């Protein structure tokens, strides 16, 4: 990235006097609005991103108010929820039908939203945190720290993601917290590499030299001058990565080692439902749609954020 990507970030952070002068000069030649305002204006025009944001907001609301929104308990087995031992098709009482144990699908979908969002957001958040820590440390410190961290990253990238997650879970036992932890542990490598390359290239740039020459301490350079550049990357990955994390959670639950029954997760609902798909296709179709809609929302928002936060990519 070049000057116009970096300068506005500096404007937003309190800076030393000398830099303020330099900023003013940069400010005159470049966009007068600053990165965040610019990004917001671009995002507001992006209809797909807004749709994604709307989907995410809706899902978050459903997840928070699950206990009010769900018509029934997600784990209660209704006596009238089974007909001849088979799932009941959608009806007035069970809007989306019931599963093979007589549980209400709609209620399970609503509670499943809470699990998916929780695991996706926290698991991916952990991955982003590890990725930024590892990438920044390797890129900024250099030397043997760089060698050890980036070589380990390469080793972990040599694993197939899903099999690594499976191996970790088989060691740690399945469960909500473990799934979050495992998603964090397998997904950080990609961002670590990007952040590493970015910080390493930024470290050699003139504005870092300038900061050092006016006597900025190393932590100050790190936190005030380098990390703000990583923030926009982090925001994009917090969104896009959540989509992949939700897919991984549902896949692990589908395999049967993710979220354990009776807790509803869209993945384990699909897994349970696939055995009845001939007689009761809704057992597979509704959780699939919920899953796809969620992932779509995060992808749309993430794409929009990436376009909005990358001033290089003016359309």
């Amino acid at each position: 990235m070049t000057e116009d990507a970096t300068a506005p970030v500096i404007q937003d952070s309190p800076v030393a006097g000398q830099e303020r002068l330099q900023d003013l000069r940069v400010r005159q030649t470049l966009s007068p609005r600053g990165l965040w305002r610019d990004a917001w204006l671009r995002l507001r025009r992006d209809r797909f991103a807004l749709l994604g944001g709307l989907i995410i907001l809706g899902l978050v609301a459903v997840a928070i108010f699950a206990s009010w929104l769900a018509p029934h308990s997600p784990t209660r087995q209704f006596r009238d929820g089974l007909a001849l031992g088979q799932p009941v098709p959608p009806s007035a009482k069970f809007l989306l039908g019931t599963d093979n144990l007589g549980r209400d699908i709609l209620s399970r979908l609503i509670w499943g939203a809470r699990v998916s969002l929780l695991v996706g957001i926290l698991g991916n958040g952990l991955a982003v945190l590890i990725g930024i820590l590892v990438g920044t440390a390797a890129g900024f410190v250099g030397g043997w720290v760089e060698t050890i961290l980036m070589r380990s990253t390469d080793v972990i990238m040599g694993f197939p993601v899903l099999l690594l997650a499976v191996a970790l879970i088989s060691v740690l036992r399945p469960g909500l917290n473990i799934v979050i932890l495992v998603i964090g542990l397998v997904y950080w490598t990609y961002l670590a590499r990007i952040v590493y390359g970015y910080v390493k290239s930024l470290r050699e740039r003139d504005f870092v030299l300038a900061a050092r020459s006016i006597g900025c301490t190393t932590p100050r350079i790190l936190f005030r001058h380098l990390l703000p550049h990583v923030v926009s990357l982090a925001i994009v990955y917090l969104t896009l990565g959540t989509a992949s994390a939700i897919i991984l959670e549902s896949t692990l639950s589908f395999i049967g080692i993710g979220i354990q029954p009776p807790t509803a997760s869209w993945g384990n609902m699909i897994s349970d439902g696939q055995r009845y798909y001939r007689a009761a296709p809704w057992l597979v179709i509704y959780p699939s749609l919920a899953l796809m809609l969620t992932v779509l929302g995060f992808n749309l928002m993430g794409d929009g954020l990436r376009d909005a936060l990358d001033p290089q990519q003016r359309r």
Partner: protein
Amino acid sequence: MQGYLVRRLLWMLFVLFGISVITFFLTVLLPSDPARVIAGPRASPEAIAKMRESWGLNLPVHVQYVRYMGRLLQGDWGRSFYLRTEVLPAILRRLPATLQLALAGALAQLLIGVPVGLISALKQRSWLDRITMIFSLLGICTPAFVLGLLLLYYFGFRLPIFPLGGYGKPQHLVLPALTLGLAGGAWYARILRSSVLEVVSADYVRTARAKGLHERVVVLRHILRNAIGPIVTMIGSDLGYFLGGVLIVERVFAWPGIGSQAWAAIEYEDVPMIMGTVIFAAFFIVIANLLVDIAQTFVDPRVRYT
């Protein structure tokens, strides 16, 4: 180039070493006692102790690792607790089926992704572009098992065109390969579209058109050849990834490959088999990445390694 190759090979060995260390120590940390699993739930403590001794489970961890590594290099990957056979032959026996699916899946990805990406970039902002990009976005948002189950339901059950799973005839291959092809093809289309858009306005494309070359030649030789780089990387690493067993798709379609075997191993907590599959899969991924880097020098003469 030779120096690069040597360094790349050494690096590959290091990564494989790191992978074997991680998988081995993971299995040592396993809370369930392998000896108890092998001996069965009703075994006496003496039988379990005997089992532990005969499998070398009573030795210190690092000794176990060195012994394990030595056996690994000799092709002795241990015995599967659940199948009660050697791990490596069991994996290799499943390789032909997985290879078939991997090649078919990779081919499907290319056949779907490349034309879609190319056409939507050349017709940028047309309705065709918008529709294909919406579909490829949906493809990205659909987990493989959802896609597989939906294809199975609609084209195996509602419209019984294809079998509901199994192996042997060409029609068994269609739905699993299509599942991989649609999911991966969606990525390929998006990536190729943006890399084509980067080159269509290049001077050499204009020159090629100006000197009266046939449009087909311009597109295939000037545009596609310059834009295909990222796809070469992706197809290589995807193929490497598939060869390690396509866990989900193989399971959904009852495809008798490495992936279904790994699934069974997960259900039975069959540690040697899980570990063997992980190392086998990682081996293909690492090899594939090496081959991709070499292939890039042929596809794109600008890439040079020293």
